């Protein structure tokens, strides 16, 4: 356990992912440290979501190794893997809520599978989670098709946090939210990270999120990490894409 504190929570080494003949990720290395919020940026189609999905195990890789919580996901036993999966939560880009279950049932789904607790406690925890993500208790009995885009994101976050994971993956959490909603969401992620000691792996395009929420930023390009570091490092970088990204019109608007 003591070693785990120094070791990165996610350690990605030399991974290569290929679709047909297109190489999306090419010998990529990445470390995510315990307790940090890592913002992950890159041009559209660079493979940000692919990397996330590869780490979670939804996309097969051609080469390389992935360690999460110090467990190598390739050589781990089913029980070890199950244990790792229980300790992470995933927020998909479209929410991926179960459409035939209510909000309450969606949030309780992982608890029902993994924990043997009373219905009363599950209901109370559900209400606590809903309050944490800034939703009213009335939302609990609604179906996903009756929610707005922002509410879906929040419910999906509540479900990702359902088992109080140590690590959450957020795939473009603020896309499709209004600036106020997006700002609230960043604040929320920050608060949850502080209160629950979360590690957050956040794929984002939102410059505001990068400035306000993230501790560290990693940039993906040409199938590799082209830069990683604080926001100041990013601004100082001479890489053409980074210069455009952090010194473009929109970036200046955020900084002022």
């Amino acid at each position, binding site marked *: *356990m003591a070693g785990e504190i120094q070791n990165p929570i996610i350690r990605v080494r030399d991974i290569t992912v290929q679709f047909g003949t297109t190489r999306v990720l090419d010998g990529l290395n990445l470390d995510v440290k315990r307790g940090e919020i890592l913002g992950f940026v890159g041009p559209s189609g660079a493979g940000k979501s692919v990397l996330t999905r590869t780490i979670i195990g939804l996309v097969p890789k051609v080469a390389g190794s992935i360690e999460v919580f110090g467990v190598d996901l390739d050589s781990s036993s089913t029980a070890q893997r199950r244990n790792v999966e229980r300790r992470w939560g995933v927020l998909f880009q479209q929410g991926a809520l*179960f*459409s*035939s279950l209510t909000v*309450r049932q969606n949030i309780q789904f992982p*608890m029902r599978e993994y*924990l*043997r*607790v*009373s219905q009363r*406690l599950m*209901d*109370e*925890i559900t*209400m*606590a*989670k809903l*309050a*944490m993500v800034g939703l009213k*208790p009335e939302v*609990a*009995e609604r*179906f*996903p*098709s*009756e929610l707005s885009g922002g509410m879906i994101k929040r419910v999906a976050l509540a479900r990702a*946090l359902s*088992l*109080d994971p140590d690590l959450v993956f957020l795939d473009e959490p603020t896309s499709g939210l209004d600036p106020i909603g997006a700002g609230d969401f960043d604040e929320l992620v920050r*608060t949850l990270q*502080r*209160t*629950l*000691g979360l590690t957050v792996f956040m794929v984002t395009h939102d410059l505001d999120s990068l400035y306000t929420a993230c501790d560290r930023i990693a940039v993906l390009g040409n199938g590799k990490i082209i830069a990683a570091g604080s926001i100041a490092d990013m601004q100082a970088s001479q890489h053409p894409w980074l210069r455009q990204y952090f010194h473009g019109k929109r970036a200046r608007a955020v900084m002022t």
Partner: protein
Amino acid sequence: MNSDPKLERIAKGNALALCATGTWTASFAPVLERMVADAEKLAGGPQSIFIDVSEVAKLDTFGAWLIERLRRNLTKGPVEAQIAGLSTNYSSLVDEVRRVRATAVVDSSAITITGMLEQIGRAVAGVGGTIAGLVDMLGAVLAAWFRVLIHPRSLRLTSTVHHMEQVCWRAVPIIVLITFLIGCIIAQQGIFHFRRFGADIFVVDMLGVLVLREIGVLLVAIMVAGRSGSAYTAELGSMKMREEIDALRTMGFDPIEVLVLPRMMALVLALPILAFLGAMAALYGGGLVAWLYGGVEPEAFLLRLRDAISIDHFIVGIVKAPVMAAVIGIVACVEGLAVQGSAESLGQHTTASVVKGIFFVIVMDGVFAIFFASIGM
């Protein structure tokens, strides 16, 4: 670091301290819940109670909520329970759960007699709604069709041909195989039972009339309802779920014209073709069995078939095909467009599409039987 959580009771003078130790996290939730439920029984005692959490190694939402719940339940009457020794790391978490109101969740799934009666009533009323929906769709399709007749260029030919390929061309192997087997079975059963009366040769009459008038078209229609009706419902339903149909509408297109009409036309053209192929396959299968199993030579079979059936039998069968196709198509499209936002709804409507499609096909067949009997065909 992960040590079992404990809640010890220590008397301190007039007050009672509940000392929480160990890991108060989701993994230990069942144990925690039991401990907290035990401790809640202390409520209403004379001494004041405080909960000491300074020794807690790890706390998450589950643990924080259970401590908060314990505090609330111990706060009965004048004595207010306090939480002591809260580290700064966890105080924001406890503050967070403190805002939660314990609302009772009403479970409305209980089964009652009135509820069941209500469901029956709704289902009966729903029949009227179903028929209205079908008539509505029939009208909309006909209107779109007339528009296409007036402006033939607005016909979506590519889409129609694509659906023809899906429902007609690709269906040929399975339809031919199944009707061939049914023809074989009818012939075998006929010969087996007719032989006792020395009436083997009448199996040809039975096969000809049955296949051309009824089995050919009915069987094919049922298969098409299962194969293509369900596909139509699922396609339109998932388009509805992803707001694709709304998108069409906002661009000024009529979904009936763009999506429904090509599908309907493909189906109405396909079913007579498939019914014809099916009838031929069934006759071939029956003839083969009559020859190999019943000893009826192919020449004798054909001669007998020519005497037994007339063109009327064929017409009676094939005339039904486009009507049945229209019924299947309309049911499938109505169900597809009725899909709501959930995956469950898509499944329900696809099931309903096939069940209703087959039901209406059989009802139509009965209506046709009465009609042809009364005009003497």
